[in-house]
C-alpha cells in the first residue's frame, strides 16, 4: 500500500467520515482514495474550491464534533494557515496532513522536510501549537493517523501528520488491524440545542484583552501537559553512542543505513528519531548529551530541527547539519561521510 493510501484508510478506520481537500502533488492519492471510499460508506468527500475553503469546511465539521480531516502539500498548507489558527483559537480538533515538497514558493514536487518550522512553531498567526507527528514508514503513516485523531480529540487541537513525498509515495506492507479508542464526549459541539440546553458557541474572538489572555494561558497549560506526557521517539543504538544523529521521516531511514555501516567501521554512533516533532522529545536528547560528544542533525531542510536539538541539549555538545534540500535526499554515503568526519574531529575510531 502507498503511504498516502495508508493515511486515508487509517482515517476511515479511525471513524473519520468527512474529508475535504484540493488537488496538489504529492499527496493527491489521499483525495483520490477518499473520493472512491467515502460514498461507499456513507461518508463525505468534497473537493473544495481552494485550500482555504477546505480547511474551513473542516472547521465546520469539527464544530459539530465529528472526526474530520484535510490533506495537502507545502504551498497548500500555507493557504490553510488561516484556518489552522482559527481551529486553534476555537479549540477544535482536526487532523491535517502535510506531505511536504520542496520550497519556498511553488518550489518543486519532490520530498522535503522544510516545513518543520511552520509545523512546530506556528502554522498561522497567534500563539498556538499543533501536535506534529512524523511517520517514518507506511505502517506509521497508518498508526499515527489514528493516534492523531485521538490526540486531537483529547486535547481539542489540530494534529498534523508531517510526512514527505517519499513517505507518501513509498509502497510497503501495512497491517491495518488498528486499535481505535472511543471518541470522547464533546459537549461543546454545535449540534443544535434540541431546545434542551443553552446554545453552544464556537468562537475565537475575545475583544476583552484580559479574557483573551486567559484563553491563551489556559491553552498553554494544556500544551505544557502535552509536552510532559505525549512525546514519542525511537532510539537506535544510543546506549554507548559517542555520536548521536537526530533525524525523522525519510531522513531517519537513510541515517539508519549509514549508522549500520559506521558501526561496522567501529564508530559508536546511534540515533534519536523524534516521532512527535511537537512536543519535541527533549528528554532523550538531554540524556544522550551526558555521554555523547557530538550530534548530527540529518534533515531535508537548511537546518530547522537542528535548533530544537541544540535547545534540547543546552549546547552541551556540537551539533552539525547533514542535509539536502529542494527535493534532494541525502544518501547513506553522505550521512556516513558526515559521521566519519565528526568521528575524526573527536579523534575517535576511524
Amino acid at each position, binding site marked *: 500500500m502507498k503511504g498516502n493510501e495508508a493515511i486515508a484508510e487509517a482515517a476511515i478506520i479511525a471513524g473519520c467520515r*468527512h474529508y*475535504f481537500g484540493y488537488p496538489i502533488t504529492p499527496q493527491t492519492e489521499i483525495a483520490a482514495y477518499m473520493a472512491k471510499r467515502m460514498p461507499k460508506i456513507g461518508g*463525505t468527500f*468534497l473537493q*473544495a*474550491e*481552494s485550500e*482555504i*475553503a*477546505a480547511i*474551513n*469546511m*473542516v*472547521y*465546520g*465539521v*469539527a*464544530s*459539530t464534533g*465529528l472526526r*474530520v480531516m484535510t490533506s495537502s502539500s507545502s504551498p497548500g498548507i500555507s493557504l490553510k494557515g*488561516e*484556518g489552522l489558527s*482559527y481551529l486553534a483559537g*476555537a479549540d477544535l480538533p482536526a487532523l491535517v496532513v502535510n506531505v511536504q515538497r520542496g520550497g519556498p514558493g511553488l518550489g518543486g514536487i519532490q520530498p522535503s522536510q522544510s516545513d518543520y518550522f511552520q509545523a512546530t512553531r506556528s502554522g498561522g498567526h497567534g500563539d498556538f501549537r499543533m501536535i506534529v507527528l512524523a511517520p517514518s514508514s507506511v505502517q506509521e503513516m497508518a498508526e499515527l493517523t489514528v493516534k492523531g485523531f485521538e490526540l486531537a480529540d483529547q486535547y481539542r487541537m489540530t494534529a498534523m501528520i508531517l510526512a514527505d513525498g517519499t513517505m507518501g509515495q513509498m509502497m510497503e506492507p501495512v497491517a491495518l488491524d488498528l486499535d481505535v479508542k472511543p471518541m470522547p464526549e464533546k459537549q461543546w459541539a*454545535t*449540534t*443544535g*440545542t*434540541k*431546545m*434542551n440546553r443553552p*446554545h*453552544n*458557541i*464556537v*468562537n*475565537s*474572538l475575545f475583544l476583552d484583552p484580559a479574557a483573551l489572555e486567559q484563553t491563551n494561558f489556559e491553552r498553554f497549560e494544556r500544551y505544557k501537559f502535552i509536552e510532559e506526557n505525549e512525546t514519542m521517539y525511537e532510539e537506535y543504538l544510543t546506549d554507548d553512542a559517542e555520536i548521536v544523529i537526530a533525524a525523522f521521516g525519510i531522513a531517519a531511514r537513510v541515517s539508519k543505513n549509514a549508522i549500520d555501516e559506521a558501526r561496522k567501521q567501529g564508530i559508536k554512533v546511534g540515533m534519536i528519531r523524534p516521532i512527535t516533532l511537537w512536543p519535541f522529545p527533549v528528554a532523550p536528547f538531554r540524556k544522550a548529551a551526558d555521554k555523547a560528544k557530538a550530534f548530527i542533525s540529518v534533515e531535508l531542510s537548511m537546518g530547522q530541527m537542528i535548533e530544537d536539538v541544540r535547545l534540547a541539549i543546552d549546547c552541551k555538545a556540537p551539533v552539525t547539519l547533514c542535509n539536502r534540500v529542494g527535493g534532494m535526499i541525502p544518501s547513506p554515503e553522505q550521512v556516513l561521510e558526515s559521521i566519519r568526519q565528526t568521528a575524526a574531529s573527536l579523534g575517535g575510531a576511524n
Partner: protein
Amino acid sequence: MVVFDKPHALTDAPLHYCPGCTHGIVHRLVAEVIDELGIEGQTIGVAPVGCSVMAYNYFNCDMIEAAHGRAPAVATGVKRANPKENIVFTYQGDGDLASIGMAETVHAAARNENITIIFINNAIYGMTGGQMAPTSLPGQVTQTSPYGRDVNHCGYPIRVCELLSELEGPEYLARVTVNSVKNIKAAKAAIKKAFQNQIDGKGFSLVEVLSSCPTNWGMTPQKALKWIDEAMIPYYPLGVYKDRSAKEEAK
C-alpha cells in the same frame, strides 16, 4: 394579551449595533422565521467578520464564528456533518461575502449547497470604520475612497444576486430591503422562503438585504433609509433573481 414580544430565537443580550442600523431589524426577522418554522433546536448559525461578527451572542441557536469570508465553507462543513438534521445559515456583510469570501460564495452557490445565506449589503465596511466595499456605489465617499469611488481606478460595485443568477446551481436568489414597513414584510417573506427551501432540501438560498449604515454614511437614520431608495435601489433593483422551483412549477 401579548401584542409584541421578542422572538425566542433572539437572546437577551443588548445589540451592539449603532443607532439607526438595520442589523437589528434583520436579526429580528431571522429569529421570527426560526420561531415560526420551529427549527431553533436544529439550527446552527455562522457569523462572519464584520459588524455582525458578534451575532453569535444574539441568536439562541448554536452559533459558530467563522474567519473573514469563509462562512459558506464553514456552513458547508456543518451541513454535510448532518444534512438531515442541521439547518444552517450564514449571516454575512458585503466585504465578507462579496470581497474576501467571493470564492466561497460562488462555489457554495455552484454546488447548490443546501444552506441559507443572509447577505447584508450596506455598501460599506462598517466594523473597520467605513472603508470602500465591493458594493460601494460609483462616486460614494468612504474612508478609502475619499474623493468618491472612481470606477476608472477601482472598478464597479458588484451585483451579487445578478452574478450568482448566471449559475445553474443556486435555488433561490432575492434582493430585499428593510427601509419601510412594507419592505420589511417582503424581506421577512423572502427570508422565510430561504429557510423553507433548506427544510425542503431545495438548496442554496440567498437573500440580499439592502441595509443602512448611518454612522459610516454620515447620515441621520432617516436620511440613510431614504438613501437606500434614492441611491442603492437604482443600482441594486429589488426582486427575485432566481427561483428554480417556481420556474419549474410554472412549466
